[in-house]
């Protein structure tokens, strides 16, 4: 009997705390004098061990401007952040105030109602300064739901020393990539290219290179299974089968970085987010050993995906005012300049590129024109949903479980289920 009472009491007290939590919104926010207070929790998704230190320091610098606000920096691994945020946002407990949202996630989160619109809030200041392609991913249904933090694209990272040893020059096309890889293998015994097989994002530059795309937003068409899509699948399959590239179905990021940093592979396709981590490798103690060229051109020309990250505010945040101010601070020209200098990540404000410290950065100087030419991804709520079906078939093609034709068709079929009224 006593246990029953205890249980009832427990349930009752839990219910009480729950309501207390829900009802208490006055803890943080703005006091009468306009001073910000409370805590801002930020979920960062940057690479642990290299980028996270800089971002943590930068985020905590917000306290210097607003002494009453405490910044709670949390690094969530990039691969888990999308799901973790969805879980927390839907249940309404444990969600951060500010999330670093990948560009494709932003319209999806906004569509689900998880993000606070930022138009007219302090989060968006001097927004005409943002690069138009960076700002495109922050808009959904006529409103702005995020502020662009960094922008990126991809290129071939190569080990200059190995290239010299093999007497080859960086490849400009898929055919050159194959012949270069073969020469490297013959002369040095190393593998030419590491191609990530556990993340379909690495497939995009081959797809764009053949002139294909996942979907055509304007025509509302699914294009992944057209001849260009099939051709792209054939290209990656051939790269792996011919031994020009090696791949893994699990742990791709770590294996790629380890292999490249230790000089076991001569090339990898990667973006600015990998630069700081790569510099930490023993092959790149001398930073000038790292070379970078645009992704290899396919039969349809050259094309790398445009990516990047935005900062978005959770609609259920109990401290919206401080969160807006935090987003503004993190995306300000000064903050972006710091990030560009320390981490070689590309600013989203055009004015930052004029700073000598930024324009003098070799990686930024390389990636800026690449980003300008990069292929824009579909900024639709389903944008983040397109990768799961693609990844399954992409890995199947690379591991020989299906043919490029069947793989591309299966992806198209999955997309047609996802985008119901599309062709």
């Amino acid at each position, binding site marked *: 009997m006593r246990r029953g009472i205890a249980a009832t009491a427990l349930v009752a007290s839990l219910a009480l705390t729950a309501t207390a939590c829900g009802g208490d919104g006055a803890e943080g926010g703005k006091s009468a004098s306009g001073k910000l207070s409370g805590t801002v929790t930020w979920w960062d998704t940057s690479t642990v061990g290299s980028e996270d230190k800089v971002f943590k320091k930068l985020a905590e610098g917000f306290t210097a401007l607003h002494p009453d606000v405490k910044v709670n920096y949390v690094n969530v691994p990039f691969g888990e952040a999308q799901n973790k945020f969805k879980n927390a946002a839907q249940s309404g407990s444990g969600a951060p105030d500010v999330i670093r949202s990948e560009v494709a996630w932003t319209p999806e989160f906004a569509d689900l109602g998880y993000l606070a619109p930022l138009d007219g809030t302090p989060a968006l200041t001097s927004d005409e300064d943002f690069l138009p392609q960076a700002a495109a991913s922050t808009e959904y249904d006529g409103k702005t739901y995020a502020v662009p933090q960094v922008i990126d694209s991809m290129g071939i990272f190569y080990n200059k020393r190995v290239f010299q040893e093999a007497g080859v020059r960086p490849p400009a096309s898929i055919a050159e990539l194959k012949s270069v890889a073969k020469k490297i293998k013959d002369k040095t015994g190393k593998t030419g290219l590491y191609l990530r097989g556990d993340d379909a994002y690495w497939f995009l530059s081959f797809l764009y290179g053949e002139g294909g795309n996942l979907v055509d937003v304007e025509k509302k068409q699914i294009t992944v299974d057209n001849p260009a899509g099939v051709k792209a699948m054939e290209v990656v399959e051939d790269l792996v089968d011919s031994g020009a590239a090696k791949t*893994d*179905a699990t742990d791709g990021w770590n294996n790629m970085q380890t292999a490249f940093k230790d000089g076991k592979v001569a090339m990898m396709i990667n973006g600015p987010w990998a630069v700081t981590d790569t510099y930490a490798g023993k092959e790149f103690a001398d930073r000038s050993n790292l070379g970078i060229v645009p992704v290899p051109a396919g039969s349809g020309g050259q094309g790398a995906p445009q990516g990047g990250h935005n900062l978005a505010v959770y609609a*259920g945040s109990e401290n919206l005012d401080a969160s807006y101010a935090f987003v503004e601070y993190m995306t300000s020209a000064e903050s972006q300049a710091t990030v560009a200098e320390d981490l070689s990540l590309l600013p989203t404000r055009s004015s930052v590129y004029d700073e000598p410290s930024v324009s003098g950065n070799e990686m930024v100087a390389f990636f800026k024109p690449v980003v300008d030419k990069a292929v824009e991804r579909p900024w639709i709520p389903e944008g983040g949903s397109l990768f799961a079906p693609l990844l399954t078939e992409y890995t199947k093609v*690379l591991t020989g479980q299906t043919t490029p034709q069947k793989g591309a068709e299966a992806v198209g079929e999955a997309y047609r289920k996802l985008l119901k009224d599309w062709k």
Partner: protein
Amino acid sequence: MAVHTSGQSAAEAAEPGRARGRRRDSAGAPGRFRRGLSTHWYAWTMVAPVVIVIGVIIGYPLVRGVYLSLTDADERNVERSIGVNHLPATYEFVGLGNYADALTGSQFLGTLGWTLVWTVSCVAVTFGLGLALANILHRRIAGRSFYRMMLILPWAVPGFVSVFAWRFLYNEDNGLLNKILAGGGIDAVPWLNDPLWAKFSVIAVNVWLGVPFMMVALLGGLQSIPGELYEAAEMDGANAWQRFRSITMPGLRSVSTTVVLLSTIWTFNMFPVIFLLTRGGPGEATQILVTQAYKFSFEISPRDFAQSSTWGVLILVLLMVFAAVYQRVLRKQGETW
């Protein structure tokens, strides 16, 4: 002590009471029920918290899962409340449509096929190895308790820790297994990158994790077989194999039926091994029913709660059918289970 006895009487009271109540509904059950309540009210009160807790933590999710499987609920139409925004649920009842889709599509049946291969091979190998080890450790050999302890170790380590350790071992370029093979001049094996090897690898890890349980349970069974039987058989001139066939196997019967049933259910739903080792990959080569159901509900977007629940209910039904058939077969063979 007092609590213990009353708990027992509660269980006794609850079971026959329910069975009788059902059977004799027409023959004045209410009086009996009322009398039972007045005599055993204390017992009923004692079990009430347990019943309520089980109802909340098992009953509610179960009912909710079955309900969701009959709707088209996904991430975009379920009820959400985010801060001041409140979005009501807009999903609709679709009847058995999800079940029809699952059972007629190739995905469920394909995944079920591999799940069965996985379960049968895991249970068979685990049982075989467990039986062999139990027999070895049942003998008086030097350092017996040390071996027993070492063999229980996989069980003592938290499952996810061992699975992560295995994942490092399996790494194609930097893993210990391939380094050892390279020392012997053997080419690197794509443990988790080739569909067939990945299947082998996940089964191997699950066997490694499952053997201690089998071994301990069967060792217990072995120790309960009276030694006189073996002595008598030896006197009669039975050889080792005959003793094993005619004494050990029948003696282990009750233990082994139970552990095989448990092991089958656990393996069928062995989420952590598959999820942490391969995430169902490469492609979908090692995806079993539970990991695929998880994928529907948490990895794809929009999250498909309806399909995930449908698969969940189908898994439950499959396991219940299996348990029922298994029980019936055993009963036919004269086992009381």
